[in-house]
C-alpha cells in the first residue's frame, strides 16, 4: 500500500470535496449575473428594434410626380415678385389642374375631391416658395415631385412592406395610386421637412425642429440657472456651513427634494411663476425655471459628492502652504471636482430633457406650429411632442412618434457621451 495516500478525512481530502460544491455555487452565481445582464440587454434590444423599425419610415416621405404649370391664369397673378400677389396666388388650383390632366377620366365632384386629397396641402406652399425664389418659372411647364398626403404615404409605405393599409384610402384612390406606381410616378425621398419644420396637424408636414429648439432653449435656461446655483450651494454646504442641526435639516431636505415626483415641481411652477409672477404660459423660460427646481437637488448632491472626493491630502497641502479658504476652493477643490460636477450636471440635464409631467403643468403641451426663436416664445419640448403625437389618431403619426423617440434617445446618448468625455479629459490624477 501507498503511505502517501491521504486518510479518509484528512483536511486536504475534505477541502477537495468541498471544492466541487464551491465551484458549482460559483458557477451558479456567475450565471445568475450573466443572465441578468442578458435580460437587460435583450429588453433594450427589443425596445430599440421596435422603435427603429416603426420609426425609420418617418425619415422618408412619399412624393408624386406631376406635370405642372405656373399658369398666370390659374394662379391669378401677374407678377411673382410681388409678395401680396404671391400670398393670394392659387397654387392649389395649379396642382388640381395638373392632377386632372394626369387623370382625365375623373369628372364627378366627389371623385375630384378624392383625387385632390392625394396631394398634401403643403405642396402648394412648396410651389409658392419655389416661385418666390425663381420668378422666371411663371408660365412655364415642368415636372414636379409633390408631397403626397399622409394617407397616401401610409398606404404606399405599407404596400411596400407587403401589408397594404386600406383604412384611409378609397378603392378609387388605390386605383390611381397603382397607375402612378406603374408609371414610376411615386417615390420616397428623404424627409427633410421632419427636421426643419414645427408641429402640424397634417402628419406629412409635421416636424421635430420646433420641439427640438424648445428643448434646447429650456435646457439652456436650466443649465444656466441650475449649474451655478447648484455648485454654489454645494460649495457652501461642503466648505463653509457649520455642522449643526440647521445644516443637517437643509441636507435632509435637499435629499428629499431629489426624490419628489417631478409633477409636483410643475404644480409649484404653475403656482409661483405663472399665477404669482404672471409669466407667460408655454414658454421655455418658465419650463427652464421649473426644470431648474427639479434638477437642483441632483446637481447639489452630485457636486457635493465631487467636492467630498477631493482628497484631504490636497486640502492639507494647500492650507499648509497658507492658502486661504477661497484660494483652496478656487485653485484646488473646484478644478478637481469639476469633472464630477459636470457629469452630475449633464446627468441632471439628461433627466430634465426627458421630463414631461412638470412641463404639462405649465402649458408646454400646447399645439405650437412655429419654431420658437427665444426663451419667451411659446414652445414645446421633445418628450411633450412625443406625448402629443402618440395621442394623435392618424396612422402616420405613429412612425413620427417613434422617430421623435429616436431623436430624443440620440440626444440623450450624445449628452451621456459628453459626460463620459468630460470625465476622461478633465479628470486629473493625484
Amino acid at each position, binding site marked *: 500500500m501507498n503511505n502517501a495516500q491521504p486518510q479518509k478525512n484528512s483536511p486536504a481530502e475534505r477541502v477537495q470535496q468541498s471544492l466541487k460544491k464551491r465551484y458549482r455555487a460559483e458557477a451558479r452565481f456567475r450565471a445568475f449575473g450573466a443572465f441578468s445582464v442578458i435580460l437587460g440587454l435583450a429588453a433594450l434590444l427589443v425596445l430599440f428594434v421596435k422603435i427603429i423599425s416603426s420609426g425609420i419610415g418617418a425619415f422618408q416621405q412619399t412624393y408624386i410626380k406631376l406635370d405642372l404649370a405656373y399658369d398666370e391664369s390659374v394662379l391669378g397673378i401677374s407678377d411673382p415678385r410681388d409678395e401680396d400677389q404671391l400670398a393670394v396666388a392659387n397654387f392649389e388650383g395649379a396642382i388640381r389642374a395638373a392632377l386632372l390632366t394626369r387623370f382625365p377620366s375623373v369628372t364627378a365632384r366627389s371623385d375630384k375631391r378624392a383625387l385632390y386629397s392625394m396631394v398634401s396641402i403643403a405642396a402648394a406652399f412648396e410651389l409658392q416658395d419655389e416661385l418666390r425664389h425663381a420668378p422666371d418659372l411663371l408660365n412655364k411647364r415642368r415636372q414636379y415631385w409633390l408631397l403626397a398626403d399622409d394617407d397616401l404615404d401610409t398606404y404606399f409605405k405599407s404596400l411596400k412592406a407587403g401589408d397594404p393599409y386600406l383604412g384611409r384610402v378609397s378603392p378609387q384612390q388605390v386605383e390611381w395610386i397603382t397607375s402612378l406606381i406603374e408609371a414610376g410616378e411615386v417615390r420616397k425621398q428623404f424627409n427633410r421637412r421632419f427636421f426643419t419644420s414645427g408641429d402640424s396637424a397634417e402628419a406629412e408636414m409635421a416636424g421635430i425642429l420646433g420641439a427640438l429648439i424648445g428643448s434646447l432653449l429650456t435646457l439652456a435656461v436650466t443649465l444656466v440657472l441650475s449649474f451655478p446655483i447648484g455648485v454654489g450651494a454645494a460649495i457652501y454646504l461642503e466648505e463653509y456651513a*457649520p455642522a449643526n442641526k440647521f445644516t443637517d435639516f437643509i441636507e435632509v431636505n435637499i435629499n428629499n427634494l431629489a426624490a419628489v415626483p417631478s409633477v409636483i415641481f410643475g404644480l409649484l411652477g404653475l403656482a409661483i411663476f405663472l399665477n404669482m409672477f404672471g409669466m407667460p404660459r408655454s414658454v421655455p423660460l418658465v419650463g427652464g425655471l421649473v426644470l431648474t427646481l427639479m434638477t437642483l437637488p441632483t446637481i447639489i448632491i452630485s457636486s457635493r459628492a465631487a467636492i467630498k472626493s477631493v482628497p484631504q491630502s490636497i486640502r*492639507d497641502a494647500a*492650507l*499648509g*502652504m*497658507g492658502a*486661504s479658504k477661497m484660494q483652496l476652493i478656487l485653485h484646488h477643490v473646484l478644478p478637481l471636482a469639476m469633472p464630477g460636477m459636470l457629469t452630475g450636471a449633464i446627468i441632471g440635464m439628461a433627466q430634465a430633457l426627458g421630463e414631461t409631467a412638470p412641463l404639462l403643468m405649465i402649458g408646454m403641451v400646447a399645439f405650437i406650429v412655429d419654431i420658437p426663436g427665444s426663451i419667451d416664445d411659446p414652445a414645446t419640448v421633445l418628450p411633450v411632442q412625443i406625448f402629443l403625437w402618440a395621442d394623435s389618431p392618424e396612422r402616420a403619426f405613429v412612425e413620427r412618434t417613434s422617430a421623435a423617440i429616436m431623436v430624443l434617445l440620440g440626444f440623450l446618448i450624445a449628452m451621456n457621451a459628453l459626460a463620459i468625455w468630460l470625465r476622461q479629459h478633465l479628470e486629473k490624477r493625484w
Partner: protein
Amino acid sequence: MNLSPDDRAELKYKTVGEKFSETPKLKIRGLNVSYAEKQAIFDVNLDIGSNEVIAMIGPSGCGKSTFLRCINRMNDTVDSCRVEGSIQLDDMEICDDKVDVVPLRARVGMVFQKPNPFPKSIYDNVAYGPRIHGLASRRSELDGLVETSLRRAGLWDEVKDRLLQPGTSLSGGQQQRLCIARTIAVSPEVILMDEPCSSLDPIATAKIEELIAELSENFTIAIVTHSMQQAARVSRRTAYFHLGQLIEVNDTQHVFTNPDHQLTEAYITGRFG
C-alpha cells in the same frame, strides 16, 4: 511598567529632561488640546530651539501629530478641536483666534505623511506658495525661486528637464522632496514634518534624512516619526509623548542610550505589550 489601556489619561507625569532652550524659536507653554470630550494633549511645556531638529516619538494616538499641527494651526480645520495655552513663535502668539493663519503658515511650513503634490506641474507646485503670498513679482524672479527651492530640496538635477510635467508623475521619494521644495519656496522659519518618510522606501528615506540634516542649517525642524531609528539619526533632541503627555525631552543620544523616564525606556526598547 505594564501599562494597561485603562490607566489612561488620568495618569499625570512630570516632564523630565531638558524642556527649555537657550535660543528658543518656539515657546510652548501649558498647551492643552482636546477633541470634543476627549483630551488629546495635557499641559505640554517645551522650547524648540533655533535651527534645531527635534523629533517627536511615541506610540500611536499619543498626541504627537496633534501637537505638531498646533504649531501651524492646522487643527483649525477640525471643528471639534479646542486648543488652550500658548505657543510663541519668536514673539508672535500663535494660539490666538485673532492671528491670521495665512501669514503664520508662510512662516511655519508643513510636510505631510503622504506625499501630496498638487495635481499640477512640478514648476507650479513649487511656484504655488510664492504666487499666493506674492513673493515674486516677475517671472524671472519666480523661475529663480523655483530653481533655488528645488536645488535646496536636492531635486533640481532630477527634474530640471521636465518642470512642466505633473508633480504626481514623480516617484514617491521625489514627490516628498517636491513637497519639501514647495514648503521651503516661501522661506518659512519652521518646518513641521509629520512622518515624512512613512510611505517611502529606505533609499528615499535616506535622501529625505540627508535633506533634513542640510535644511537644519537654515530652518528649525520639528519632525514626528514612528521610526525610532529615524529620530535617532536626524534629530538633536527627542521628545517622547505618551497618552497626550510629554514624558521626556532630552538630547537624542541621551534618550537612546540612557533615557531618564522608564516609559521612554519601555517604548524605545520595545517593551510595551
